């Protein structure tokens, strides 16, 4: 059975407000941000998934970073897809680079992959054309698209992990006996560098 999200009437608040349709007030969408500061003169970044295929980002550069970016010819924004490699490290692959219009402070990245990880940078371009990141976001994940057809009793599909701890990777290796000299260990194992043998 296909799911239909949001198949409910509007919540209470809206029900009551429907009765106030003629209530005084501006019915147009006017952002009242005239009453909130337009600029905080601070370096800020917010990076949030809106849904499986869309991420929203806002950013603000402090005045002096803005000036630095302006001297570089204006800001560029970049979106990276993020992958975890076999060493549990993150690798970053450039997905989009955009030169937004001046004074832009937010962006929607659309048509992304569900269940993927992304991060964002804003910065300028150096004289040699290389990108110089000023701000970088945390890595966030887009939610995956759920399965719709599912009845109890269906076990994991082939390749699906059967336990939350089963992740692809190497299995534990067998123990091996070893007769090692203490000095040899201390000399060859970086972890133990600096350790002094106990005094006799």
């Amino acid at each position, binding site marked *: *059975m296909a799911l239909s*999200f949001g198949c409910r009437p509007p919540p209470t608040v809206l029900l009551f407000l429907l009765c106030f*349709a003629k209530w005084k007030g501006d019915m147009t969408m006017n952002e009242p941000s005239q009453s909130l500061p337009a600029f905080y003169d601070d370096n800020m970044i917010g990076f*949030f998934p809106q849904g499986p295929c*869309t991420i929203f980002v806002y950013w603000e550069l402090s005045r002096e970073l803005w000036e630095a970016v302006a001297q570089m010819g204006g800001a560029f924004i970049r979106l990276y897809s993020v992958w975890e490699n076999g060493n549990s490290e993150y690798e970053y692959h450039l997905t989009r680079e955009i030169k937004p219009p001046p004074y832009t402070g937010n962006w929607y990245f659309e048509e992304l992959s569900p269940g993927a990880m992304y991060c964002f940078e804003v910065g300028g371009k150096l004289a040699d054309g290389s990108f110089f990141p000023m701000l970088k976001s945390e890595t966030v*994940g887009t939610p995956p698209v759920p399965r719709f057809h599912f009845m109890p009793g269906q076990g994991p599909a082939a390749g*699906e992990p059967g336990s*939350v701890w089963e992740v692809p990777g190497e299995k534990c290796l067998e123990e091996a006996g070893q007769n090692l000299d203490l000095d040899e*260990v201390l000399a060859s194992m970086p972890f133990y560098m600096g350790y002094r043998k106990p005094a006799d």
Partner: protein
Amino acid sequence: MNGYLLLVLHAHLPFVRSSGAGESLEERWFFEACTECYIPILNRLEKLDGEGVDFRLAISLSPTLLSMMVDEHLKEKYLGYLDRMIKLGLSECERTSGSSELNILAQKYLRHLEKTRRYFTKWGGNLPPAFKSLSEKGRLELLTTAATHSFLPLVHSKECRRAQIEVGLDSFESVFGYRPAGFWLPECAYEQGVDVLLRDAGVKYFIVDTHGILAAVPRPPHGIYGPVRCRSGVTAFARDPESSRQVWERREGYPGHPDYREFYRDIAYDLNIDYIEPFLPGGDIRVDTGFKYYRITGGGEEKDFYDPALAEKRAAMDARDFVARRALQLRQASSGMDRMPLVLSPYDAELFGHWWYEGPLWLEQVFRLAGNGGIKTITPGGYLSLHPFSQVVEMPMSSWGEGGYGYVWLNPKNDWIYKHQHFAEARMSYIADRHGSEGKMAQRALKQAGRELLLAQSSDWAFIIKEGTTVEYAANRVSGHLKSFMALADMIESGSVDADLLSGLERENNLFPDLSPGVFAPYRVSPGIFKGAGLKVAVLSWEYPPRTVGGLGRHVFDLSSSLSRLGVEVHIFTCPAQDRPHYEVDEAGVHIYRVDERDLKTSNFLEWLGGLNEGMVRLARERGLGEGFFGLVHAHDWLVFSAAREITEKGGIPLVSTIHATEYGRNRGIVTDFQRRIHGIESRLVSMSRQVICCSNYMAREVGRLFGGGLGGIRVIPNGVNPTNLVPGGNSRPQSGGPVIAFLGRLVPEKGVQVLIEALPLIRESHPQVELAVAGRGPYEEELRRLASKKGVEDCVNFIGFVDDEGRNNLLARAAVAVFPSIYEPFGIVALEAMAAGTPVVVSETGGLSEIICHGIDGLKVPPGNSGLLARYVADLLAHPDRAVRLSRNAHRKVLDRYSWDQIASETARVYIDVTRGASPEHLRKAVLY
């Protein structure tokens, strides 16, 4: 029996109380909800209870709604509203005397209003006790939600998310005298990490939307017909879409049937304004009165008179239909399950009675008929008492909003909110921490600032803006609360509070009277739960000051000292140290037992290690291991595995292990037999640990990938730093000459000093006088010297060798920037030390280091090995000291906020409590494998 039906009603209104004397438009929402929803529902439930009908229902009451229910000013206003409506009822009875169809209805509504008034005054104007009474009889399970119903995934700071949760629970507790086990996530909006905050607050379960569970990994065997368990231990139930659709769907759902009362035909819009005006809150603004005389009839404008008897028959039929469909659904689901299936059907409470006038009657009928369908109604808490364990899964973000995620609350119409909201969140955490102990006025201002921020975070405003109805009202609520917050924050920081402004805000937005501003502070040490708990922990650490190698010994020392101050009795078992006794109790009250060095006379490493472990066991036995002296064992890294295993088994006590680094990670793979052996020991240590602790998400990923998560999973608790230890000493005057770049750490390839040396020539182009001070020792030093010579920078690289704490402090004080270009770094405690010392940092974007720094905010990050970009960043910082100051200021604040040892010890002790009081290993295995 076919299965269980879990009906959940979520009752919520935004805080709309006005301090003025007259009734405001917004308060009308509250009055109507009481009259048409809450009191009729309570009446029906009490009737069922009185007749002995066996039913169970869960009701969530939001804190803002509870605040209004207990408000004396609103109670009076509500009585005034009821009196006006009764007058209108009398007037209507007279006006409609010529029409029997209308007059019957007018009389019905009048009777309802009079009954409502009697009910309200019977309870002393206090509705919560009515809910409590049914709860005490076992009919209701009461839940609550976030303080102001904020959409938690869009609350940026962890502290403010926690504040929403804890203030909400505190508010519930202040009304009902206990904390609920269940929590209604606002908009069913879940994101990973929210469950951890709920667990910390003592919540046992919450509710998500359907796809929250269906998209979980691994696939839950019961789908939505059973709950699932997060790794944190909190259980999640999912909404059933089929039963939702039957009630919620505008066109095909029950409430849309032609026999039911038409919501939109109210006399307020049909009658002459002169007649109706005395009963309206705003004079000439027409709003619902509740006197509705027509039924839905069909899709056209023509409506027939409402027939209550017909509608009641319809409600009974729809209830029978609902029960029959649930019975079929449960029968179908049960064929694939080894336990009774459940269907969870959550609804907004205000649907019943307001939008759907016959809703409360339908609900009553469902409870009467459920047994006939082989269905037992139960609450989530009741279900968990029967089935406490469920499969452990990871769930993605989800909500029950349109689209299933965040679109409703984050779209081009309302996205402007979040920069301002998040700025305010960060500021609230800061002022709550820095000004939390000031005078009475400051405390009042802090409290009110907290209230204003919470009110700004309500999900209702973003929703209204998106729907485009009363945009100005909602936008003004957001901006108004945020402006009030900013004004209060300015006053607090300046030390001068405007008493009149503060009093005015307190009068207007007076909810959460017991709000403690500390709930917003960056860390909260769990107050006093460890003192008196009698918790004695055996800590096994192969190194301990004064015998230290890497950071592990210092970590154990700092952690133990802080744990001891919290009230945990810590007993350290460790290696010998010259001129130190075999047993001592240090200044912090930590008991230290050192293995006798005479037991370790061997040149074979493994024999030496074996002797160390045997010595630890012997000392623990002497201390009282066999007599149940210790509550648990905390092992640090693989070197103490043998002792950990033996003490755990002999003592019958649980094991917690901290994995500081792995052999695989240190060597970027397993190559030699010795590495394999260590790898194997690490795996066994993890598998026998009740809980594993890692210092970073990176380490948690690595340990999870290599070894799995052990019985209870992996908890990430960062390393800490003691900022008071980073005060520079007397010799800290800047030396003459150029700017100094500092590196501190072991001279081994993984620390990446070679990358920094390679960057130096480029840095020198813009800063010819620059000096690199390399503090540390290691086998790689010669290689680094050769590299410096090869790069032509040997004259500006100063290898100063090992530095003690004072030397470290002096170096950091005179450095213009500290650089940590590690190739592998599980955490990077020395970077924290530099941040605490106020030195701007540039680090590699690797491992745990990457998680400490927000690039451009409190430091700079460079891809590992990228000497070119490293050079540019360092040169840029040297050229722009103001940028460096901004970074270091934010970095210093971050260290104080997140990496204090008190906070880390509190989180660690929390692990101890969870482990010693939590599920047995058997139960944990069952939960993981289930």
